[in-house]
């Protein structure tokens, strides 16, 4: 079992990743490629250079300190070849305007738990705790288990936000350690799910079942994406109900993560307008019929 976690970031006072006031630990790496992903920097396990063009003073300092050719100066602005980047962060140190950041670092379980513990009083007061999210946290199965065990031993309630795209026995093991499993149910149509996100519905169903039989509280998380599944919310809820899910969160599509694509040298691949929360209010009625408790937003 490893003691190191490939960490993206720790967000304290997280209010949308499970009950109460939480600290969400985002891990790097995801097997899926959902085109609307709001955290594209989490998809790769690699430490990733993020460049904020709006802050850049175009001074050239980053290129002048880059020894690997990952940043060169072309036409009066920086050009990035992230595949050459070794993550030395010399460019970040040289940048006076804060236009460079790095996503991803190795952190020990102990140091993460130490920070999580700092807000224990807030969790205790609100039924909150630690959520491990991603990326896909199960992609770092051993580190995830270590985090959950460490939290448990400190009396911290835990949740895992996952796509369940992992070996069934891994999901099962994690669900035995976690109090809440927040499991993405992005579609009930196996073809659409596989074609657009790369996820396997069989793994999803196995994951849902394994989590329930492990005794975790299972919450289906349905990102409602126009052009993908916004017309199929009822079918997805019916699918969830058939799988035994009794609680679902509908997460209206937003574009808050769209700007991050440019920051990591990619193009945002989904078009659509953000959904208003109120446009999903009809789902409550469907949920009632199906015996599913619905919450709009996380």
């Amino acid at each position, binding site marked *: 079992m490893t003691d190191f976690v490939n960490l993206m970031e720790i967000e304290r*006072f997280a209010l949308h990743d499970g009950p*109460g*006031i939480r600290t969400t630990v985002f891990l790097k790496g995801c097997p899926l490629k959902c085109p609307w992903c709001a955290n594209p920097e989490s998809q790769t396990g690699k430490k990733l250079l993020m460049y904020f063009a709006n802050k850049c003073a175009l001074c050239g300092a980053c290129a002048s300190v880059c020894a690997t050719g990952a940043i060169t100066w072309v036409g009066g602005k920086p050009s990035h070849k992230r595949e050459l980047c070794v993550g030395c962060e010399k460019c970040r140190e*040289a940048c*006076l305007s804060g236009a460079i950041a790095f996503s991803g670092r190795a952190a020990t379980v102990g140091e993460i738990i130490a920070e999580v513990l*700092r*807000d224990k*009083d807030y969790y205790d*007061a*609100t039924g909150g705790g630690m959520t491990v999210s991603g990326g896909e946290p199960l992609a770092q199965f051993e580190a995830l288990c270590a985090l959950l065990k460490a939290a448990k031993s400190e009396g911290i309630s835990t949740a895992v936000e996952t796509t369940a795209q992992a070996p069934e026995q891994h999901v099962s093991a994690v669900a035995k350690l976690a109090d809440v499993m927040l499991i993405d149910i992005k579609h009930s149509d196996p073809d659409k799910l596989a074609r657009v996100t790369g996820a396997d519905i069989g793994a999803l169903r196995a994951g849902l079942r394994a989590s329930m039989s492990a005794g975790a509280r299972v919450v289906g998380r349905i990102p409602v994406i126009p052009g993908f599944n916004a017309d199929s919310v009822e079918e997805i809820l019916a699918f969830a109900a058939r799988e035994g899910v009794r609680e679902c969160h509908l997460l209206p599509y937003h574009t808050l993560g769209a700007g991050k694509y440019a920051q990591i040298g990619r193009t945002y691949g989904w078009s659509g307008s953000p959904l208003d929360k109120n446009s999903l209010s009809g789902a409550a009625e469907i949920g009632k019929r199906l015996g599913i408790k619905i919450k709009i937003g996380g």
Partner: protein
Amino acid sequence: MVKFDINGVQNVEISKKLPSQKTPEEQLAIMKEYTRVHASETSRDARELACLNVLYPRLFRDIEETDLIAGRIDFLPIGFGCVTSLGGVGHYCVFRDLLKLRDRLRTDEERRDIDAMYEYWKDHDVKTLYCRDTLTENTIGRFIDTHYPMIATARLSGMMLDYDKLIALGIPGLRAELSDKLRENAGNEFIAAGIGCLDLFTGCARRLADMARAKNRVRMAEGLESICSEKPAHFHEAMQLFWLYALLAGCINYGRLDDLLGLYLARDIEDGVLTEGEAYDYIKSLWIMIENRRTTVNGRVIVGGKGRKHPEEADVFARIALKVAKDVRFVEPQFTLRVDNDTPEDIWNLAMDALGAGATYPTIYNDEVNVPAVQFGMRVGRAAAERYVPFGCTEFVLYGQSTGTPNICINALKIMTGFLNGGVDPVDGKRICEAGEVKKLSEYGSFAELYDGYKRVLDRYIALSAQAQAHSYEVMNSQVSFLFASLLMDDCISRGRALLDGGVRYLGGTNELYGTINASDAFEAIRELVFEKKKYTLEQLEAAALRNFEGFERLRKELWECDKYGNDLDTADGLAVDLYEHLAKGVRDAGIAAGMRYYLVVISNNQLNTEWGRQTGASLDGRQTGMYMNPANNPQGGANKRGPTAMLNSLAKIDARYHAGSVQNIKFSPTFFAENRDMIKALFRTYFAKGGSHIMVTVVGRGVLEDAVKHPENYPDLIVRVSGFSAVFVNLDADIQQELISRVLYD
């Protein structure tokens, strides 16, 4: 004697006062008479009473349409008062206002009269007398001269009187108590003058009753007449009695009105004398009258908390007051809610409603922490500690039992910039450390040695501050009795002595600290870069700071990226706590040694963190020359990056037992606040359970403040919490607006 500018600005003034209703000529006549009486009377008590009789009832303003009780007064450039926010201190002359009035007078003779008074008051204005004694060339400046590392004044801020006693006894009862005392001790001038004050009170009440009758305000007139001869029987009479007394006493903070008036309010509602709607109108009317006094940083009204005699009835008042605060959205009164574990849920919810509406009120104090902290800090029993009330920007005082005026302010960061620069303030070249207090930077062998050297300089300032505070009481006592205030302060009547003449039960004081977080963050950066990583020498850092980091931008970035207070880190928070405790314990000990019951720091700041920052050199936390300093007990704007729990955890590390009030600001966007109200309420409560003493909340949209800078005309009513007071944003100076924008917004 050091030279100082007696015409200078004496306090923060954002809210503009209503213009006097007296013509310049009428004002001149009253001030001439006041000056004549002042010069002719020699006994302190008799002189004060005679002077008050010159002012009142003449200075009462008209009764306004919205007024449901009577009492508005004007202030002249010469007169009598307690505080600098309205008029001045004791027998005062506000020289700058006197000169402005001179310009409005028409004849040479009138102007000569002004000149003669100007000369007279140069030797008699209480504050000027104090300044002559106290100010020094390089270290102690006058309020508010930010060129000095420490400033001092004489004032009697924050008096909150025992109005419970006033209302229980009524004027006749108080008169009887004084008469008994005078029979016991026939020659007691203080008591005799006290009886004269009650005559003045009833004279004013009757004059106002006439004015009310002339306007057909029958209930108001009857109330005014009734309180001259009876104890108040009804809510409006109790409110009238309290209000008129507070005006004549020169008090601008009002205390626990819920417990004071709640019983009358609840009884009148129950008896059908008053509807809840009428009660709302009365409280709203009082709010308008308080707002119209425009003190900028005062006007405290407190509800809730421990130690109330009639908590249930008091909560009836509190609920209505919370609704009024939400609806009117004034900058004053500074509406304050004390909470404890027994605070009803609906009161919490009403408070969240008002905050969510952007009222910036109530500002919330945690009795579970503050009451035991006050017991320790002020060295009083539990019952006395439960009487704590915040005034001004947050300073605690015990209503009816203690003085707590903050007459000294210390800028810990300015002292640090001088300490690192060979003892000389880098902004103006003044020597602010003494020989022997500083060494060459290369001679400091360890962080501990350096930090300790700085603390020794602070110790000298701490000792000076306690002496200067104690002396402010001596000077005021030599000139005035503060008669009206004394009558409602324990134990003035029973001892037969005026407030500062041995009358007040607990002679306390406060000392406002500034720039402490910048200083501790700067030491953290030194610790890390010089002594731990050995990346730079201390001289290199100081050389960069002296150039305001020009040409050293990368170094400045490294300083800024060192651990900062406000992120729940043991490093930076540990130093912040250590520096705070050094200052706070030092001030407390020095005050006790100087003969005060308590002398405690307050970490409040009005906007002085920005104003004093303008005169403070670049600091090694990465702050540039002239930039604002950190607000109150909060991190420097933008330094806290780990969310609200981390920031509140940092704030809660400051031990409340060693201060008499510490302001904690937090800022949310309206949508975030509305959507997560229960979690935010839980956030506040948990922070309180962890030792947080206070929270004040601004709810304002992202980008709104930025837009208001560009288009002030669109935001005439946008209220923000500065720190210890609220203000209309567009009335603030540009750099103060920037300081507010720099604070982290949670959304």
